[in-house]
């Protein structure tokens, strides 16, 4: 079966088969990243614009490398050094970029839903590299790929996601993707960071105590506490947060023996993740980054030439 979307905006929009296709493609493309000559000619002549309205090193670099390994031309636009600071609207920026005939726009934006707005206004493909507190589909896919490589499947896995669920697009994409694939998701975090009604998404359990979520888990995913933002106002202190919702070796012991620890980065060492846990054998953090390139190659490949589903 093929992939029939022009854009990839949210994992919520994708079926089980479509997610499986993206993960299979990424799995097979990962071989290219091990070669001496890390390039295939697939997207030769295609132009990918990385339009980043929010700071990002990992995601932007990963998308740029993915595009280049497929022989596409990648151009990076960072909002802080562009016309956006001069007051240009998103729709004007889009129109101007479109006039230069790109094939794919990869965008990160602080406003949830900015990508749907953009996708309606441009003829090229749009890939969401993170929008506000909504979704971060490439992160969700690379997380699922990492889990699938370790356990051979996603269905039936117990995945604990701990941290600021309300403001985390990583959590949201993982929740949509994982529940679609048949995994069980257990959430834990301070009540001020837990969106009411999230258990209605199905196959999602909210735990008051982090240890309840981690108990017998296959995967423990720790979210970054955003020190520069919500972290300041939603919890009394970092020390208190770390005591109740930080992952230390004692809490990790509750998970299955072969469980993996994941984190979307960048890590606040000693806050959500104890340094010893971040560097332990069970940590899949660098595997996640490695898989990120292959997953983004798969996304670029599948949207290129795809037609929108009516």
């Amino acid at each position, binding site marked *: 079966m*093929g*992939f029939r979307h022009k854009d990839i905006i949210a994992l919520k929009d994708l079926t089980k088969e479509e997610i499986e*296709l993206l993960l299979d493609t990424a*799995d097979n493309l990962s071989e290219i990243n091990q*070669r001496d000559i890390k390039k295939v000619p*697939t997207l030769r002549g295609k132009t990918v614009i990385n339009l980043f309205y929010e700071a990002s090193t990992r995601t932007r670099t990963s998308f740029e490398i993915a595009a280049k390994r497929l022989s596409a031309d990648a151009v990076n636009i960072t909002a802080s050094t562009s016309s956006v600071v001069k007051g240009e609207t998103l729709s004007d920026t889009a129109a101007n970029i479109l006039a230069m005939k790109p094939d794919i726009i990869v965008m990160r934006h602080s406003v949830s839903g900015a990508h749907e707005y953009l996708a309606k206004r441009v003829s090229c493909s749009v890939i969401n590299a993170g929008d506000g507190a909504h979704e971060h589909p490439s992160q969700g896919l690379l997380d699922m790929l990492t889990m699938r490589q370790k356990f051979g499947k996603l269905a039936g896995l117990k995945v604990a996601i701990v941290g600021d669920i309300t403001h985390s697009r990583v959590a949201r994409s993982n929740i949509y993707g994982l529940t679609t694939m048949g995994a069980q998701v257990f959430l834990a975090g301070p009540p001020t960071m837990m969106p009411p009604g999230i258990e209605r998404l199905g196959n999602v359990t909210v735990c008051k105590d982090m240890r309840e979520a981690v108990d017998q888990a296959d995967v423990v995913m720790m979210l970054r506490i955003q020190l520069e933002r919500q972290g300041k106002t939603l919890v009394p202190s970092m020390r208190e947060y770390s005591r109740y919702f930080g992952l230390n070796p004692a809490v990790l012991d509750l998970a299955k023996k072969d469980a993996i620890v994941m984190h979307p980065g960048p890590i606040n060492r000693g806050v959500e993740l104890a340094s010893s846990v971040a560097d332990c054998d069970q940590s899949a953090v660098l595997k996640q980054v490695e898989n990120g390139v292959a997953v983004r190659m798969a996304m670029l490949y599948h949207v290129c030439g795809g037609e929108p589903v009516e």
Partner: protein
Amino acid sequence: MAENTVILDGTGVKRALTRIAHEVLEKNKGVEGLVLVGIRTGGVHLAQELGARLSEIEGVDVPVGAVDITMYRDDIKGHHEHLPVGKTELPFSVEGKKVVLVDDVLFTGRTIRAAMDAIFDQGRPACLQLAVLVDRGHRDLPIRADFVGRNVPTSRSENIMVAFDADNKPTEVILQK
């Protein structure tokens, strides 16, 4: 109504592969520096078979790899539903090797062109040879096979299919009219 004609039965396929194995050995004067690379998916199964015959005759294992040519196709823009990508698995370096590319059916030659690009992206082989089970003609490119199981004159509208059993052993070659 589709009409099926069996061009090679199980025994015929086996004999053709055995003959190709001997021809490969004759041309290359043994298996020194020889590697087989099958084109996904049919060519990979045939490369395994051919490799087994070469080892049987010479008593030395010949490395067998696989290339997936999806990322090297020249018609990606025409595919609105993108084909799944298979895995390229070359557990050896092709640098300086005598590479025998193996495919089931040779038709326009475009697949072979893509496979050659895929191999050259991994290094510089000493030489590249082509073995196919069936050559059905209608080339779009200046490509020819070094080893051919059976030449089958076809019209462009016909279809040649190589059937494999559950163990990926070739069972027969069918011409669909």
